[in-house]
């Protein structure tokens, strides 16, 4: 047999099949499941539901049933989903991996089927493995809302971040499109590699015309990240990134996902911590965002977190409104009309 040097040829090869997901039109697994029109409708219904009288709002989905299935600890996401559901009249039940049969080895599939058998009409899932929400949707056929899957996505966080950005940068906007955020640069800084918030935002924001700068050290931001979506760039110099940005999203270092990765935290802080001085010098008007939980003194100083440019707590409020809209969509969508 010959061993001639390889000649590059263009082989016609089998294409990857189209995705069967989502199976249910009420599911929200990824920001990519939503068209711009869908996003516009969700934002509009968030505003509508937010302004509704709480005494009539709880009749919209009265006595409907929803399960919150949480395999990871959470404060903001869990509470805001729960309050959002209850404010629409939904009966909720919380199942966490601790204090449930998950501890005994019950699989995600069986847990989902059990919840369905108990009458859950939709499931909100926070899962420690990337792809958990897809597995649950395929297993149960129920609308599934992804409340964060491993290092993958956190779509409602990206939607609430979008709502926060629009409230400040495009106040009063009535509809959205591919140029809504044209001219806006958003820096996402920190532990991009392990962040589902980063992935959902970098997939979502460029679709509305924003330019996204990713900033962090190579260990937390590999070069391959740039291929994840159109409209994103890597800028390793934090100050250069800040100087171009109308908003900066700070991310926590996810100690629980580092898997043996060694980081010099002093070096990290020296390069990437958002300090009052950096903010004043390079981005004196930019919005300071953070999905939480914040680690004060690590990625962000207390002064900045509590300072006038911080919209961190506003994000939390927007989360409540967005999640009402996402829950309403999940429970009103009809299967089979996807």
């Amino acid at each position: 047999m010959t061993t001639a040097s390889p000649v590059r040829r263009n082989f016609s090869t089998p294409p990857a099949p189209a995705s069967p997901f989502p199976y249910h039109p009420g599911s929200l697994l990824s920001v990519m499941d939503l068209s711009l029109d869908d996003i516009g409708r969700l934002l509009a219904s968030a505003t509508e539901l937010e302004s509704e009288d709480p005494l009539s709002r709880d009749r919209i989905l009265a006595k409907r049933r929803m399960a919150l299935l949480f395999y990871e600890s959470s404060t903001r996401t869990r509470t805001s989903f729960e309050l959002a559901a209850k404010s629409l009249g939904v009966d909720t039940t919380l199942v966490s991996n601790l204090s449930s049969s998950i501890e005994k080895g019950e699989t995600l599939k069986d847990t989902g089927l059990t919840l369905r058998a108990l009458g859950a009409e939709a499931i909100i899932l926070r899962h420690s493995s990337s792809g958990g929400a897809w597995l649950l949707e395929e297993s149960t056929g129920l609308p599934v809302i992804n409340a964060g899957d491993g290092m993958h996505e956190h779509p409602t966080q990206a939607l609430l971040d979008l709502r926060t950005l629009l409230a400040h940068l495009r106040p009063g906007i009535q509809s959205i499109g591919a140029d809504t955020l044209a001219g806006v640069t958003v820096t996402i800084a920190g532990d991009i590699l392990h962040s589902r918030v980063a992935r959902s935002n970098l997939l979502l924001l460029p679709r509305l015309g924003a330019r996204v700068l990713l900033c962090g050290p190579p260990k937390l931001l590999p070069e391959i990240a740039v291929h994840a979506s159109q409209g994103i760039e890597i800028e390793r110099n934090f100050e250069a990134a800040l100087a171009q940005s109308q908003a900066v999203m700070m991310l926590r270092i996810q100690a629980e996902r580092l898997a043996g990765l060694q980081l010099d935290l002093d070096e990290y802080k020296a390069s990437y911590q958002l300090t009052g001085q950096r903010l004043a010098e390079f981005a004196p008007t930019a919005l300071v965002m953070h999905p939480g939980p914040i680690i004060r003194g690590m990625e962000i100083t207390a002064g900045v977190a509590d300072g006038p440019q911080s919209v961190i707590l506003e994000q939390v409020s927007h989360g409540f409104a967005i999640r009402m809209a996402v829950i309403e969509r999940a429970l009103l969508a009809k299967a089979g009309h996807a």
Partner: protein
Amino acid sequence: MTAIAIKGGHLIDPAAGVDGHYDILLRDGRVAEVAAPGKLKLAEGAEVLDAKGLMVAPGLIDIHVHLREPGQTYKETIATGTAAAAAGGFTAVAAMPNTIPVNDSPEITRWMQAPERGASVRVFPIGAATRGSKGEAINDYAALKAAGAVAVTDDGHPILKDSVMREVLTAASRAGLSVIQHAEDTRMTQGASMNLGPVSFRLGLRGMPNEAESSLVERDIRLLTELRDSHAHLHVAHTSTAAALAAVRQARRNGLRVTCEVAPHHFLLTDEHVGLYNTNMKMNPPLRSALDRDAMIEGILDGVVDAIATDHAPHAQHEKEVEFEFAPNGITGLETALGLSLRWLHKEWKLPLGRVLSLLSAQPAALLGFKGRGTLTVGSFADVVVFDPKTEWTYRATESKSKAKNTPFDGWAMQGKVRWTISEGRVAYASSEGRVVFANPAQA
């Protein structure tokens, strides 16, 4: 034993340079006669298989399968795995030692070959290179070989220590056995469940870098160079990266005994096929980039690849219905290898049929020293596959003879349908279209 005459077919035996219309007679488990159409002399009383319009070729040989027995019979047994092999046109398979317990002894090696296992085709056990495949103490290769082992490997537990690998290569060479390495520097793949690249980043999954494979292939070749005088044979299992293939190519130019195999999924699929966490697209080595996939095709076409091997790795349905990172590695492959190779290597990329069949029979037989197999010259084992090269059909996992259904090729178009598989003179598989007529009406 009954004799079988296969008449009217197109005999293709690449190792013997035969490619034309011949009838062939099998008797007592061997090829008794090859003759021009209608000219068989000794066919009286033989069962006649009408092979008009069909190809008659040496039975296929898969040198990389997992039959799961002993120990994991809920996934597969030697009987079910070899039934799937027969349905796929294979007449011999080499079984990896990662059973429970690990096949590191002559006893298990013999047990796997015992008639009680109910194998449809010949099973050649591959022995573990080290005790329990723990990468420390090496096994008694002469004893393993005497019991029927055809090579040694620690397969999924690659041998990382240079000193141990050196000892394995030397001892195996002395015993006349090949060393098969699953090349993966596992220090670079901790917690990883797919190929490292833009897709793994997008899916939020930890990735295995190409270097985890290529660096170990390069290390093994370096050791082989140091041991040049031992004439040790290194076989690289399921090659998946361009760099590893390039290292094999270079080593061969330097006169070293290095061979490699490529699995159908690695010349057809890329990490994009993982889609949204499809666990039937999860195996190790993982599906790589399009660049690597193209290099596998190129390597097959230009001849640096020595064999197509499936890495048939059955798993129970419940094991794959879990989070991607927790799903076990591996997919089935015995029933789809021929159909995919003909559909893509032959039809699409124009590799001559004889070359495709050689990669699936004569070359793997030569690689592991299976005497009298991979060819249909008189006196060879009566290992034959008869197939219709024109038929296009759709593979359905639910119809698999394997216990497992974990294939990425469910619903895929296949080319070439197996009509009969004959293993050492016995019909191991006959498709529903397989007609048998008898020369002697009294037997009908």
